[in-house]
């Protein structure tokens, strides 16, 4: 089984290095095919490991020692247990699909080879993140995915906006990573280990306040990666990257790393339910907050990005309330349908020559039947209609909130479910139904390559059946490691009222979205309204950050540059250089080649040395005398 583990882990790395060999060359199809093939090998190995884990075993290997100094011992250890195998399956399935899709999507791009190198490197980092058996390894993966995310958001680096977005994402994550690092230090400081099993065994014996701090700092790390408020602005801007990247990194895998961290660290969060409640409340807030911004946005990819943000909020609600397996389940289901949605959006973008405004589309269902069907399936799953995946995972979270008596969270989430359905189908209606407005703008849409659609199909199938087919098996498997908890509403009547009520509510939201946006009528009165403007401008938060963080920071940097760097640091360095230069210039007259002058200087030097010898000897005597009369001066 170890062999399969190593194949699953290192195949993407090999693929990345292979594609990297062709990095500077023009498009070489093999640079795309080999990483894809290796990733498929990784997928197969992960599946074999999954069957192994389903049989009730786990695999734990230690590749080699990384650090060993004193009490500190950190190995490169990897573990395949019920939680990590779930993540491995999600990562490998989605990334295999995305790799194949990218061969078609990046067909005409100059950076074809480079793209596959980055993409496979990302998958490798993600695998390290989820498979590591200690916090240090997790942190390596964590930084690795951050780096690859930066590379891929800024993939089209000649675009000013892309590099800006890449830097924004990187810097925001850096702020959060500091929190995470402090959390890891606290763990090591208090438990003396970073291995998951040892830490979780030791954490129960710690003081509650320490555990609270650990929980908070780890969650700050999770907030950055999973783009939770107030570090959320980077995710929408990250849509500057190529669409397959958005599907893989900014919807299915990397952004869920925060949820994975909380799920993985469940023994820590179990001790501190208060922090869990805070996490859940923040999650619910973000769910609503992001969904509201998605309502009015006019950028197709940003709408989906806000939707991702909102669904991450759902996951944190479940994780915060202690329903870790529900969070992980929603993570899995969400990865499938959200990646599908993004890939569909990629097809639409290609068809419309990179146009993103859905108000300029309309009626595309005739031209792009395959994409239309798949995006609709994904949206239905996202909205949580029975019997698609979203129904099982998202309704479960609602039930968790209800059963745990957090009725406010429940209400917020229920409303958000309505909003989710509304904005998803607003998008579908605008893109695929109604008049063919694109003709006015002179677009000539065409469907994507056949094989791209064929490889999206597995995701569509999973989006349909993942909830129905896997829930039981998944529950049995994952609760061997995570706290089990059946969240059932006790009275059958309440359960049916809730479920059917939610379904009807969501259904009405969908119908309303269709009615309102089928003809893409723009209501000027609403658009000039306060709320519309507030939502359209993302609650003015980016402007707020610009005004209150970026600008003061820039001003401060200018001050430091002009007054400290130039006048102190540079001046000091220059002074040292100038001193030597000037003394050299002044004293070179000594070397006039005249032996007589040189001899005089020699005598002067001799006299100087003699005098200083006498002076120092005298000074030493005086000091020795002082020591005798002033005790405590030290000698």
């Amino acid at each position, binding site marked *: 089984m170890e062999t399969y583990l190593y194949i699953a882990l290192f195949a993407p790395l090999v693929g990345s290095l292979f594609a990297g060999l062709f990095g500077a060359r023009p498009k070489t199809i093999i640079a795309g095919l080999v990483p894809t093939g290796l990733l498929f090998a990784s997928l197969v190995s992960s599946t074999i490991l999954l069957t192994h884990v389903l049989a009730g075993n786990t695999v734990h290997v230690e590749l080699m020692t990384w650090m060993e100094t004193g009490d500190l011992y950190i190995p490169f250890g990897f573990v395949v247990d019920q939680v990590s195998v779930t993540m491995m399956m999600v990562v490998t399935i989605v990334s295999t699909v995305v790799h194949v899709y990218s061969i078609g999507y990046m067909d005409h791009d100059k950076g074809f080879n480079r793209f596959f190198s980055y993409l496979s490197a990302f998958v490798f980092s993600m695998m390290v993140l989820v498979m590591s058996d200690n916090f240090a390894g997790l942190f390596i993966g964590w930084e690795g995915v951050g780096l690859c995310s930066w590379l891929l958001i800024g993939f089209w680096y000649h675009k000013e906006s892309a590099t800006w977005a890449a830097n924004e994402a990187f810097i925001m994550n850096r702020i959060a990573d500091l929190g995470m690092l402090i959390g890891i230090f606290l763990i090591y400081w208090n438990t003396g280990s970073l291995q998951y099993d040892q830490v979780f065994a030791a954490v129960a014996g710690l003081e509650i306040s320490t555990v609270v701090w650990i929980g908070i700092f780890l969650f700050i790390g999770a907030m950055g990666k999973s783009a939770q408020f107030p570090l959320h602005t980077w995710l929408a801007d990250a849509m500057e990257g190529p669409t397959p990247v958005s599907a893989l990194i900014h919807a299915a895998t990397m952004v869920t790393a925060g949820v994975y961290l909380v799920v993985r660290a469940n023994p820590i969060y179990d001790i501190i339910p208060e922090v869990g409640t805070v996490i859940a409340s923040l999650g619910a807030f973000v769910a609503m907050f992001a969904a509201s911004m998605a309502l009015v946005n006019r950028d197709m990819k940003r709408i989906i990005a806000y939707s991702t943000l909102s669904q991450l909020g759902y996951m944190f609600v479940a994780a915060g309330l202690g329903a870790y397996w529900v969070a992980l389940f929603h993570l899995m289901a969400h990865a499938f349908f959200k990646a599908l949605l993004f890939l569909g959006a990629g097809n639409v973008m290609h068809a419309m020559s990179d146009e993103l405004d859905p108000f300029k589309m309309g009626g595309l269902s005739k031209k792009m039947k395959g994409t239309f069907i798949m995006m609709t399936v994904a949206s239905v799953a996202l909205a949580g209609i029975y019997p698609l995946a979203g129904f099982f995972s998202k309704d479960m979270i609602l039930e968790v909130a209800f059963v745990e008596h957090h009725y406010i969270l429940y209400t917020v989430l229920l409303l958000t479910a309505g909003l989710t359905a509304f904005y998803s189908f607003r998008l579908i209606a605008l893109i695929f139904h109604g008049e063919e407005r694109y003709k006015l703008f002179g677009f000539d849409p065409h469907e994507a390559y056949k094989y791209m659609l064929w490889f999206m199909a597995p995701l569509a199938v999973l989006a349909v059946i993942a909830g129905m087919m896997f829930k039981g098996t998944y529950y049995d498997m994952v609760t061997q490691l995570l706290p089990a908890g059946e969240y059932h509403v006790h009275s059958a009547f309440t359960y049916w009222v809730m479920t059917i009520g939610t379904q009807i509510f969501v259904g009405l939201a969908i119908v309303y979205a269709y009615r309102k946006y089928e003809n893409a009528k723009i209501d000027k009165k609403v658009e000039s309204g306060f709320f519309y403007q507030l939502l359209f401008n993302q609650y003015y938060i980016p402007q707020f950050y610009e005004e209150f963080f970026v600008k003061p920071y820039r001003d401060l940097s200018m001050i430091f540059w002009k007054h400290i760097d130039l006048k102190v640091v540079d001046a000091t360095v220059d002074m040292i250089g100038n001193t030597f230069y000037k003394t050299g210039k002044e004293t*070179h007259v*000594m*070397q*006039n*080649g*005249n*032996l*007589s002058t040189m*001899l*005089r200087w020699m*005598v002067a030097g001799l006299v100087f040395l003699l005098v200083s010898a006498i002076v120092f000897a005298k000074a030493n005597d005086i000091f020795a005398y002082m020591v005798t009369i002033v005790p405590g001066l030290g000698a």
Partner: protein
Amino acid sequence: MEIGLSHYLVLSTILFAIGLIGVMRRKNLLLLFFATEILLNSVNVAFAAISHYHGDLTGQMFAFFVIAIAASEVAVGLGLLIVWYKRTGKIDLDMMTTMRG
């Protein structure tokens, strides 16, 4: 008045000062050698005197070394001086400025 160590040291110091002034002032290469000899021999006087005073022969041995080295130095120096004189016809120090920095 008995002649003691301090007299020898004073003599040595005076000789050393004369030699030093000679080294600084002389412009004639030959006289510069004389001045150097005075310097070395002033030190030899001090060595011998202190050696005698302490009853330790090391100082006198050192003086012999100095004499031997001074002799060889003068031999080489005078050889060079003669070559220089044959080339330029002058042994004035102010003329020897080819090593200007």
